[in-house]
């Protein structure tokens, strides 16, 4: 029982990072129907920014996190402006291929500039383990979970309660109609990229702190898994992405817990295939008919 609880905690800590990443995927997809495969690399950039400001400017954790979110938001907006905006009316597959190109550019650009070796993330917060009823949980796991949940709630607030959020929902629903009522879709799309990338950047710093190891290719696998999480939750759905992230984290942990560690990635992709076959719109996805 203790082991199961412990594994659940492991799974939830991992899942909260996937959830933060999945939110970015799902928001961008919801608005411009683009799978932004460079999203995982924005998360990597966030981790590197956190690394540099903590090491060289001696930021504390909170400032590092906030500055990272600001910088990655900017990066997200720039990527959208340079790479995706010119292709707004191009076929979807062109934008998708561009996203893969941006991803490779960021990965190899960072390897070229800063070297491909893994580096250790400065430990600004010292790890303590709390033992509650036989299971141990570290302060860093609590910080990760707390930050992730806080950001998700904040996001939900922005989308449901603010004017910009309303505009985002409007553009997602029907961009042309939104434009007719005076919404500038370009602003809304930039804003979406900013928020999604800020969340990814936050995830990068949290991961750096948790695992203490960052490298230019660190965004690849988590990026793909977050994509699976977004699909499982129902791509385009914000609560779906959060739940999907946690589910994928727990699934991965469970696979390892039963001794099938070699197949943990495979398990995630099997789930992707099953979901696409059985429930293509995901858990929370709206079953919308495509207009022909």
């Amino acid at each position, binding site marked *: 029982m203790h082991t199961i609880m412990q594994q659940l905690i492991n799974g939830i800590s991992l899942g909260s990072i996937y959830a933060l990443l999945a939110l970015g995927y799902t928001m961008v997809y919801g608005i411009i129907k683009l799978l932004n495969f460079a999203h995982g690399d924005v998360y990597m950039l966030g981790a590197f920014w956190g690394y540099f400001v903590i090491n060289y400017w001696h930021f504390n954790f909170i400032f590092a996190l906030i500055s990272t979110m600001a910088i990655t938001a900017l990066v997200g907006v720039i990527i959208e402006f340079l790479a995706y905006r010119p292709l707004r009316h191009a076929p979807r597959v062109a934008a998708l291929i561009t996203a893969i190109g941006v991803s490779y550019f960021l990965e190899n650009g960072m390897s070229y500039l800063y070297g*491909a*070796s*893994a580096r250790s993330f400065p430990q600004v917060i010292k790890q303590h383990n709390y033992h509650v009823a036989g299971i141990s949980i570290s302060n860093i796991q609590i910080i990760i979970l707390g930050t992730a949940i806080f950001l998700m709630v904040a996001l939900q607030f922005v989308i449901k309660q603010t004017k910009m959020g309303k505009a985002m929902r409007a553009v997602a629903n029907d961009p042309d109609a939104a434009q007719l009522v005076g919404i500038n879709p370009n602003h809304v799309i930039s804003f979406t990229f900013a928020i999604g990338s800020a969340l990814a950047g936050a995830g990068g710093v949290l991961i750096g702190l948790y*695992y203490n*190891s960052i490298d230019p290719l660190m965004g*690849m696998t988590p990026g793909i898994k977050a994509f699976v999480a977004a699909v499982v939750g129902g791509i385009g759905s914000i609560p779906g992405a959060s739940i999907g992230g946690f589910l994928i984290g727990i699934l*991965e942990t469970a696979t390892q817990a039963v*001794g099938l*560690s*070699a197949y943990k990635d495979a398990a995630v992709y099997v789930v992707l295939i099953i979901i696409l076959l059985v429930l293509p719109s995901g858990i929370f996805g709206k079953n919308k008919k495509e207009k022909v």
Partner: protein
Amino acid sequence: MKKTFKRIAMGFAAAAMVAVMAGCSSSAKAKGNNASGNTIKIGVNMELSGSVAGYGEQQKKGIELAVDKINKAGGIKVDGKKMKVKAVYRDNKSSTTGSASVAAQLVNNDKVVAVVGPATTNDSTAAIPNVTKASVAMVTPSATDAGYTMQKSGKVQPYAFRACFTNDYQAGAAARFAYTTLKSRRVAILADNSSDYGTGLAKAFKSNFKGNIVSTQYFQEGDKDFNATLTSLKGKKFDAIYAPGYYSEIGLIVKQARQMGITAPIIGSDGMGDPALAKIAGSSNATNVYYSTPFSTKSADTNSTVKTFMSDYQKKFNAEAPTFSALSYDSVYMVKAAIEKANSTNSADIAKAMGKIKNMNGVTGKMSVDSKHNPEKTVSIEQMTDGKIVKATQLSNMGR
């Protein structure tokens, strides 16, 4: 019209020149490439970008240092004439297809007389056909799979050499160390499943270890979370963990294991031999950690070759030398030893001489190349306490 004619004429002239040049090389008849002028060109087929660029970069540094050092000392003496060395670096992008095409480029276009690299077994094996066709020897600093130097028929590959241990040799040493020195009877294995290196070592450890293997779990290169696997291991009874892989992942395993209260010894392989290991794991966690290595920084205290290598490396790159750099450094010196032994810059002669290297004094130990093109040298087991290497035990010639 005139312009077109001119172009055609130039095309013909170029074609004729190529034909003449081709005639030249075929009239020489001898196999292999030769050095031209006063420079010996050594090709470097290396993972400089892509998934294992981290290893490639370190190896490149070792090669740069070795080439610098040889040239500062005047070069390599061939037939009474000192010749400078020039390394030609080409990136294989951590892919087998890249490695094969880079090998072809190096031996056919750059006309190198020997190749150093690639870093991984898969990429190295992919390069063999092209270097063999051109009769150019290649030395890999770190391809550890026993099959790499062997042909399918069981004969040795005439142009494939390595500077590192084979998996069997290294894992065998680790297994004996665990059983005899640490007195471990029950061992759990946690191996890197994404390379021949990790799976090969795990397999060799299993067949060499006299005690029980409690559990064998795998991870992928690039994984960051081992909590789940370690939590389930924690419930089992074991005396030690054998974790063959590279420092980037093993560092995290050490960290996460210690943080959840697993204090059993963790034994790894030479891929762990990097100063970054202790940084990633956290110094206080890197205790009761052991790994087999051909190159012990500890031996700098007694061995002057290692000492100068360490200080030169520190001076040039402002960092402590990792194992990968030491191995690539030795690979270049193996080429040098072979050229001197052959007293020729003909690549086929160099390959022949390389198979006969005896007692070369490298930074990774005194080595002789055996009949299977593997280096015979001693294994050390380094012990870490609080992130520092406190002891190096030499396991010399304990039989293969």
